[in-house]
């Protein structure tokens, strides 16, 4: 079994890759996937801490895992709504390229 530092490193790496995707890619669906990846990377951190922060009884701290459970639930809802928005957006603008979606310019 690997050490906590290794888990955290992997988690950070995944997060960084997700962030790079968000910054580089222009397809809004892929950006959305990268966001999901970043969320999951954060989940990995939580679970890792849960496992290595054992309580008095020696068992993992399950509060962390409950939080991950909530995150996944909310992420599912988020994906559903987000994709619905993307569909609506595509219907209105016929594009999923964020370069073309600049109507919020001040």
């Amino acid at each position: 079994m690997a050490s906590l530092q290794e888990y955290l490193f992997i988690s950070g790496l995944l997060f960084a890759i997700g962030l790079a995707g968000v910054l580089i890619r222009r397809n809004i669906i892929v950006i959305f996937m990268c966001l999901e990846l970043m969320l999951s990377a954060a989940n990995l951190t939580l679970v890792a801490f849960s496992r290595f922060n054992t309580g008095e009884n020696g068992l993992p701290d399950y509060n962390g895992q409950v939080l991950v459970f909530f995150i996944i639930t909310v992420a599912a809802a988020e994906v559903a709504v987000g994709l619905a928005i993307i569909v609506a957006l595509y219907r209105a603008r016929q594009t999923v390229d964020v370069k073309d979606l600049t109507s919020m310019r001040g």
Partner: protein
Amino acid sequence: MLELLSWTMLLLPLCSAAVIQLLLREMADTAIRISVGSVAATFVIALLLLESEDRTLTVQWANAGSFHIEIGLIIDDLSRGMMIVVTGVGLLVHLFSLAYMKEDEARGRYFAGLSIFMFSMTGIVLASNFIMMFIFWELVGFSSYLLIGHWFQKDSAAEAAKKAFLVNRIGDFGFMIGILMLWGILGTFAFREMAGSATVLVDSNSTLTGIAVLLVFCGALGKSAQVPLHVWLPDAMEGPTPVSALIHAATMVAAGVYMLFRLQFSAGIEIFEGFAGTTIAWVGGITSLLAALMATQQDDIKRVLAYSTLSQLGYMVMAVGLAGDHSGEAGMFHLYTHAWFKALLFLGSGAVIYACHHEQNIWKMGGLFQRMRKTTITFAIGTAALMAIYPLSGFWSKEQILEAAHHDQPVLFWLAIIVATLTPFYMTRLFIVAFLGKSRGHGAQEAKEVPPIMLYPLFALSCMSVIAGFTPVAEKLSPAFHHPSHSFSPTNPVFLISLAALLIGISSGILLYRGRDSDPLAGNRLFKVFRNKFYFDEAYLVLVRVFQNAVAVVVHFLDDFVIGNLIVGGLVRSASGVGNLFRKLQSGNLQGYAFLFGAGIILIIYLTVFAR
């Protein structure tokens, strides 16, 4: 009974004014009856009160914790005498106005104004404390504003009314400070509580007391039109002539003198000792001299009388300021006699103006003696009283003032003698030019005797002008009277000198103006200065332009530009500038935001973890 009568005397004119203004706008004739009725009633009450005992009635007007402002009536010799003057002249002027204002559309408003004036003047006379006096002081100025501006459609009348109010306000500025300072010094506003307190405090801080008294005198300066605040009074002649007679000759302008004497009477003569009294006396003396000089070159009959009023007021103020043993009483005595004969002169001039179809220039009159003999005779009586010809009323009072001046301040005495020379001179000029010789204008040629309702007040006033000065009458009616301690014998130097002054004045007037059609002195450069009133108005105009208006313009500019534009506008602009900057940052580019967001996180991590 006494209480009820006194309060009725105060409030009746107010009720009359309120009823006229609120209910009887359209019914002018009823309004006039109510107004005349109210003043007649107050005159009767004033007569009834003559026999009453002294007392003070007060009610609380405003309370603040332990502090009260009171409204009170003080009934004593001083106020009783003044009330006779005020209501007596008031009644006659009301009667005169009945005819004089018969044609005026707005006569309801006019009589309402007169009623307000009667109310305020009564208030001043009966005021038991300084705050109440200030209240009515302001009200009297307001009613004067209303009446001067009666013909407000004329620019000149509207301006004159405004000027009168503002000049009085300047005087009241000092008056209120003076009242407040005196309050601090004497510890009370009420006149009856002041007695004796002055002696103690004058010693301890005489400079401050002097300043306070001078500031109070500022009020008199405005109301009694002393130099340098005299400029409003001649302009006030824009009002209807009966108003000039009542307000600007007999009663209101005398309020300043009355107030000063009331202060002296309550707080003791000591309060005028020192530089305050001297200053007051000198201001009075100088006013009387300047006004007399200006009167010599006026062509408007009312303006001549107005300047003569100024001059006589200067006499009174000088007398009060002399702070001699009985000089104050002499001043009040002169106030009382002057009220009758100056009202007579003004009403007489009103009758003349009425007869001449509102012609006021004396050079366009002339020969009126043939056409309106009764008026001319009453006017002649008034003129003689003003000149102080023995034994008319003016003689007695003026002689007392000269006596007091001779006794206390010889320099002022000689100044007063010059005025006593000038007075007969300009009055002779007025009388000769306006009433004798031949008619020089249409109005004068068509003039005929005025209706009886105008003549009766003239008769009554001439009667008073003759008898008011005799000791038995004066004892009874004058607000303050002191038996002359000397006899007017040929051995008395004061009497001789004043007699000489009188003769010089009359004879030079006759010599210069008999049979003339224009003023022989008009070309003279010195007299031109008199004609132009020593350029006081022009000087004030410059002063107001420069100091009030220019400063106002500058301040307005600063307010608009510096505060409005630079500071506030700057704030607004910088806010919108920053807003614009942020607006530019809102590129609408999602990845731009994400980049900044990420950079922010990096920065925060750096700051929280590594930079410590």
